[in-house]
């Protein structure tokens, strides 16, 4: 493996100092389960890895009345074991369980999945569907941004040199809520999505604010996208019916732009998007007892 220096700061301040010192030659590491493989393959050649795992602040995993906060050091397994997530974020439970395998999940982090910014990142679509905001600390201050502002393309983000994503703020969906993440893959563990669809419902259709629906995708677009037209139809729908479901599936297909690669062809992915959309929407209606 390419040689590098491992730095393990125990404060955010010290991490910023290291980023300042090494500039573009430094890379941030949380779990490292993607990064170390990229280094082994020579995709990235950092001189210094700044490991964030010893910074206590980044281990925060908390729930308030308004949101869940997931620190940059929180592993996928630790997140999955939090009781609150199955109550409030069932689509994230689906996605976490489909992420890699139980061993890798003990090390890989939730924030790392977002920062890796690969189109097939399983947690990205559900975090986007739950309107997650990233908290980003830079040398001169902090900012927050949404998932779709953060990821601009495969492995490309708006993270600036010197900046660190410290945590994710995931607002609790308005009750009654339901959610589902559906993933097509070749085997049931350790596999990257061929296509993934996430659907989240929150609030009641009969109330003035109405029902809010999000429909997001994995592995079928270069950056996170929503199927806005399909969401609009679902927000108006009083009940599940087949013709509505068909229309939603067609609109979902139109919202994405998959490529052909080693895992699947573009045509197959489009068909899967339609089918997985039907399954995710059905699951959301069923969870609410409306189907």
């Amino acid at each position, binding site marked *: 493996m390419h040689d*590098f*220096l491992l730095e393990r700061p125990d404060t955010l301040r010290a991490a910023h100092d290291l980023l300042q010192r090494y500039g573009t030659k430094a890379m941030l590491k949380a779990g490292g389960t993607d990064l170390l493989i990229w280094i082994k393959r020579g995709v990235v050649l950092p001189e210094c890895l700044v*490991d964030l795992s010893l910074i206590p602040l980044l281990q925060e995993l908390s729930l308030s009345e308004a949101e869940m906060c997931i620190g940059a050091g929180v592993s996928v*397994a630790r997140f999955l074991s939090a009781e609150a997530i199955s109550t409030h974020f069932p689509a994230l439970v689906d996605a976490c369980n489909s992420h890699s395998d139980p*061993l890798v999940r003990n090390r890989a982090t939730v924030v790392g999945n977002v920062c890796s910014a690969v189109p097939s990142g399983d947690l990205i679509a559900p975090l986007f569907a739950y309107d997650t905001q990233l908290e980003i600390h830079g040398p001169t201050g902090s900012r927050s941004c949404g998932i779709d502002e953060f990821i601009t393309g495969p492995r490309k983000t708006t993270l600036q040199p010197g900046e660190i994503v410290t945590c994710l703020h995931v607002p609790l969906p308005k009750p009654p809520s339901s959610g589902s993440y559906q993933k097509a893959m070749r085997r049931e563990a*350790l596999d990257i999505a061929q296509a993934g669809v996430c659907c989240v419902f929150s609030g009641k259709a009969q109330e003035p604010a109405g029902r809010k629906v999000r429909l997001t995708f994995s592995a079928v677009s270069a950056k996170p996208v929503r199927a806005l037209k399909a969401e609009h139809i679902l927000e108006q729908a009083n009940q599940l019916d087949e013709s509505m479901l068909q229309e939603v599936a067609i609109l979902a297909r139109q919202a994405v732009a998959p490529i052909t690669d080693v895992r699947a062809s573009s045509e197959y992915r489009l068909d899967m998007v339609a089918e997985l959309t039907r399954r995710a929407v059905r699951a959301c209606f069923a969870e609410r007892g409306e189907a």
Partner: protein
Amino acid sequence: MPGKKEVWCTVNGKKTRLLAAGNTTLLQALRDIGVTSVKRGCEEGECGACTVILDGLPQKSCIVLAQEVEGATILTSEGLVQNGTLHPIQQAFIDEGAIQCGFCTPGMVLSTWALLQSNPNPTDEQIKQALSGNLCRCTGYAGIQRAVKKSAKLLAPKLQGGDSQ
């Protein structure tokens, strides 16, 4: 480029010094000190042949850097053996013919150990899920599944861990 650092950790109950450069994996560092039950397979976090129990959790040592384990507690298949007697899980793997070439076995045994620590009486589905990160290319998994079931019976009602856990 940077030189090696001393890393102190507990390996199978013994205070151990590893010598590691920044890019040395835990897998490499353990093999360098003779802990060879930890196998070098894909080295990309896929196959699970390099599984270790790191601070109580099963993890793939090819995607852990050795310098990250300062102060950590590591259990490998060697550490399950007590006074020359195989651990019941190891014995169950032999008895059930869950081994052919044996390359995946130490990792399978450790994932089984971790599963039974948290869930002493797993269902077939829970066993499949817990072992889904460990690949076997020769036995076909049926023997392994039987070995895990047998281990659960042997270890009930009281679970026994390795020296270090």
